[in-house]
């Protein structure tokens, strides 16, 4: 395993499978009455969050705590960062306090890259601007594999599974990481979006591209809806939220075009009634709540592997 997890492109197929298989191992332990493992006892994980993201932060916090790591939450708001401290000085401060891993969430693309150049410990990218969010892609891959392949699937990839990612790809770190990771794992990824919300050279990405969601749905095993930011409308990416919803929103009628086994995913937080209708979000196809639960196990696997904790199966006995 590498020292940092910054981009899904850093992961080979073997790396990715090791993380998913480790997460399966950890998931089986989660059924025990005492969920906590001592493998990272005495290690310190810092959650360095420059952007508000309660769900991602508590997911990482829960993951680290279940491995018995000490967790420090560093929120940039109201801190020295708000007083103009640079990312580098913040990094050096954390370093001096002896952190073993830094989980960073930042509004600037590349912030995790920069941080990795300034600290000795491991860096986990928990979302950097419009670049990547690799643990989201890992938890999505984990969720897809469990739902479509069952839970005793260690060593299995996502070969031949057709995943359609819908919406604001241009500004989505979730989409970037998922395209990279899912294609590494053998899935066939299609991006469905209005042309304004696709990056310029997207044809060179390891995926297909479509402007027509309805045409993609019947051949999708997985539909992943991306959150649409209302403010994109003001920059003329689309004329109105209503029109966006009509053309690219997933409602019950569209859901009915999916194959019976197909699942619907969303990284959250959802705009119900915009990119996803409430009855779709709450349907049996929806994996949205599972994704949250799987996020903790997947992040446990990442921290465990990056920090090289003691063998957990032995400890668990």
């Amino acid at each position, binding site marked *: 395993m590498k020292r940092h997890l910054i981009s899904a492109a850093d992961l080979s197929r073997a790396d990715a499978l090791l993380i998913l298989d480790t997460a399966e191992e950890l998931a089986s332990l989660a059924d025990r009455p005492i969920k906590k493992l001592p493998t990272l006892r005495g290690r310190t994980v810092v959650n360095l969050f420059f952007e508000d993201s309660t769900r991602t932060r508590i997911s990482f916090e829960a993951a680290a705590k279940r491995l018995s790591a000490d967790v420090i939450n560093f929120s940039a708001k109201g801190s020295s960062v708000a007083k103009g401290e640079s*990312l580098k000085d913040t990094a050096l401060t954390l370093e001096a306090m002896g952190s073993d891993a830094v989980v960073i969430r930042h509004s600037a693309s590349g912030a995790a890259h920069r941080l990795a150049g300034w600290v000795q410990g491991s860096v986990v990218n928990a979302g*950097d601007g*419009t*670049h990547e969010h690799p643990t989201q892609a890992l938890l999505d891959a984990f969720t897809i594999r469990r739902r479509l392949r069952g839970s005793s699937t260690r060593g299995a990839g996502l070969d031949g599974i057709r995943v359609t990612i819908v919406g604001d790809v241009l500004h989505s*770190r979730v989409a970037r990481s998922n395209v990279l990771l899912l294609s590494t794992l053998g899935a066939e990824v299609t991006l469905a979006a209005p042309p304004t919300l696709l990056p310029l050279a997207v044809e060179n990405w390891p995926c297909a591209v479509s402007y027509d969601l309805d045409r993609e749905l019947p051949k999708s095993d997985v539909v992943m809806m991306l959150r649409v930011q209302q403010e994109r409308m003001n920059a003329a990416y689309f004329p109105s939220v209503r029109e966006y919803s009509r053309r690219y929103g997933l409602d019950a009628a569209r859901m009915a075009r999916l194959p019976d086994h197909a699942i619907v995913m969303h990284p959250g937080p959802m705009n119900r009634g915009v990119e996803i209708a409430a009855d779709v979000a709450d349907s049996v196809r929806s994996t949205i709540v599972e994704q949250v639960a799987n996020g903790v196990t997947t992040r446990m696997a990442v921290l465990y592997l990056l920090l090289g904790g003691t063998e957990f199966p032995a400890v668990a006995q």
Partner: protein
Amino acid sequence: MSARWLVKGVAIAGPGGRDEIADILLSDGVVAATGAGLSDAGAQVIDAQGLVALPGLVDLHTHLREPGREDAETVETGTRAAALGGYTAVHAMANTDPVADTAGVVEQVWRLGQAAGHCDVQPVGAVTVGLAGSRLAELGTMADSAARVRVFSDDGKCVADPLLMRRALEYVKAFDGVIAQHAQDPRLTEGAQLNEGEMSGRLGLAGWPAVAEEAIIARDCLLAAHVGSALHVCHVSTAGSAEIIRWAKSKGWPVTAEVTPHHLLLTDELAEGYDPVFKVNPPLRTAADVAELRRALADGTIDCVATDHAPHPVEAKETEWSEAAFGMTGLETALRVVQLAMVDTGLLDWPGVADRMSVRPARIGRLAGHGAPLAVGGPANLTLYDPAASAEAAGPGASKSRNTPFAGMALPGRVVATFLRGTPTVLDGKLV
């Protein structure tokens, strides 16, 4: 009165000619004699075998940062860097603080240059008050000042308003001025961070599309033709821009253009690691753009190389990419980069380099006493350069800032000496 210098056995890069091996005698600030076997008992002799003599280099685009950002550069440190790079004159851009939009500021910069003495400093005046793009600055007053301003630019910002651009172009005709445009459509580049293309999409950085430059250049070429005024295009960075300028020149329109050393060598793929030392405006483009820019410089479509030397303090670059300042230093490496990109590739010979780095920029800048051929009676502004030296990568130089994208790169060549009106500013690669 300066001492006499005899440069022995140097290859003189004459305009349009072959490299001719000869001696050059400098006396009283002028070239006193050229030819084989010159001797002068009273002169100090430089053995220049293997060296190339170029007319002193002229930079049309330098940010000296003074007044206002003396933490990044001063006229003193910036002109030291210029001399070490082989320059005898630089044009100091107007985006200082306060902006060089009045006679007072341009005269201050001009006087600081005179006092420093490492090379001539020709201030550029702002086109609009405070670079704000809404009201013309007092262009005529700056032209009439002691600084004798002829080049006007809002560089760093585009004169985006087409009417204002038209008026500026027309107005400066009265005193033979030229408007140097930073071509960047502001709406198409809101928040832009990196060339829009494969890399920007992958890295999740807001794209700076080529069309935002090309659309402004096309518009301005049409305006220059319409009013018959001189347009100079700053830091051309795309293949499409070169094509538009080639078309405008084919019509006989009064358009000139520059390209930076970094756009002749580096591409947007360097942004991979998010190191903001590669963040510059206009951004680094693709390998295809680099190839076209080289071709356009070779065939004269692009008139000259200008450094866009843009020093920044460490903290402006040791940050997230999107937070970091745009710009890179370039004075001390320009000639070496041009050798690597243009001469060693066979695209340009040394007379061609003399033309693109001295003769034409001096002509565009209306700079008397610079860019003249190394001929008897001409000003003794010259640069002695050793193309065979394979000096290591550029170390810390004279510039106050260290934001060079060429650190760690093995560049060929070495500036051995620079003479300003017969007086050495650099000897044996060191400041005098």
